[in-house]
């Protein structure tokens, strides 16, 4: 199969978590003998080329970050400009987010299914996965630990052209964390996570506390 892959993140490619996820995903996809074209909507210069590829494709995969519970404004702006298919193309999604629990992405996932209809495409499922916020801050092995599992998902998609399998569904992980995990993770938020965010903030040249109120009150 030949797939049009669109990275729907507004973040520039270099820093995009979706981009790093797609690197691994595409490895798996290629291993199964598929080819693909890959674009980023964060680069408006590509929009005309993506629209052309959209018209010519019958296998489309949009990978996107969850933005306030749904698709990012910029991706919406792009999709408003494509010509809907006439039920002659398959569409699938990789929906990834910062918050870790599966339940956080379900509202967005539901919309993607509805949106497929408006785009005149046959919906072939969404790979749903949270806990990706830190990819951009990690390098090498630490980054690979988060992104490598997407390679297997690429293999499955490469064979089945959908995300309907049980393995893809299980990839999401827990819908909510059990109480004891919440206690542990909550503790981590207050200690390790807070420290590491403060460290990144300092490295970025910030001199203010993270809860600073620039507009008073």
């Amino acid at each position, binding site marked *: 199969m030949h797939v049009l892959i669109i990275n729907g*993140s*507004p*973040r*520039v490619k270099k*820093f*995009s978590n979706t981009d790093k996820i797609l690197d691994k995903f595409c490895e798996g996809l290629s291993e199964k003998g598929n080819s693909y074209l890959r674009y980023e909507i*964060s680069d408006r210069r590509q929009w005309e080329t993506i629209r052309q590829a959209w018209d010519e494709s019958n296998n489309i995969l949009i990978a996107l*970050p969850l*933005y*306030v*519970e*749904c*698709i*990012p*404004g*910029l991706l*919406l*702006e792009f*999709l*408003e400009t494509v010509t809907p298919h006439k039920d002659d193309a398959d569409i699938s999604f990789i929906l990834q987010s910062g*918050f*870790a*629990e599966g*339940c*956080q992405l379900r*509202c967005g996932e*539901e*919309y993607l299914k*509805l*949106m497929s*209809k*408006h*785009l005149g495409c046959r919906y072939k499922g969404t790979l749903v996965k949270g806990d990706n916020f830190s990819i951009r801050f990690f390098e090498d092995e630490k980054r690979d630990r988060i992104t490598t599992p997407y390679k297997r998902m690429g293999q499955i998609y490469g064979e089945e052209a959908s995300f309907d399998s049980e393995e893809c569904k299980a990839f999401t992980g827990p819908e*909510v*964390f059990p109480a004891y995990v*919440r206690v542990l*993770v*909550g503790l981590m*938020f207050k200690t390790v*996570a*807070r420290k590491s*965010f403060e460290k*990144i*903030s300092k490295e*970025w*040249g*910030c001199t*203010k*506390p*993270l*809860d*600073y*109120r*620039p*507009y008073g*009150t």
Partner: protein
Amino acid sequence: MVLIINTTSDTDVTAKIGSSLKEKGRPFEIIEASTLKISHCIGCNYCWLKTPGECSIKDDYEQILKKIIKADQMWVISDTALGFIDHKGKNIYDRIIPIATMNLKFKNGQMRHYLRYDHKTDIGLICNGEADMDQLRKWNERAALNFDSKSLGVYGTDRIEEVTACMC
């Protein structure tokens, strides 16, 4: 104060809302955002980590953000596209994130950000055009959760009387 952000070019709707709220004596402010320059969020994370609370994009959204953090209610008026609100409406939501901080906690069993300000702003949505209203209602509720606030509901522009009754 009730803040009304109109991202459509239909100013009849805001005129109607304005006169109704004036009659009721409720404090409000209307922003005609279609005449303003408002970019999409570029996901740079500066508002959380480099210039906490401040967006790196210096466009007309900054004045809106300053008003949002003081408003008791914020109503977004948006055109629709692909069964949802259009990108101009969605950009208003995406760019609110400086009011959240980077720090995380669990609330009602789910991960959330700590909010930057004590004041909470409830969010309502008015749609101009066809959309999947049930999905939008669900979505607006989830969106409000992210800002520790409540959804005031989702209405079509044909229900302005009802909407102004909820504006207080």
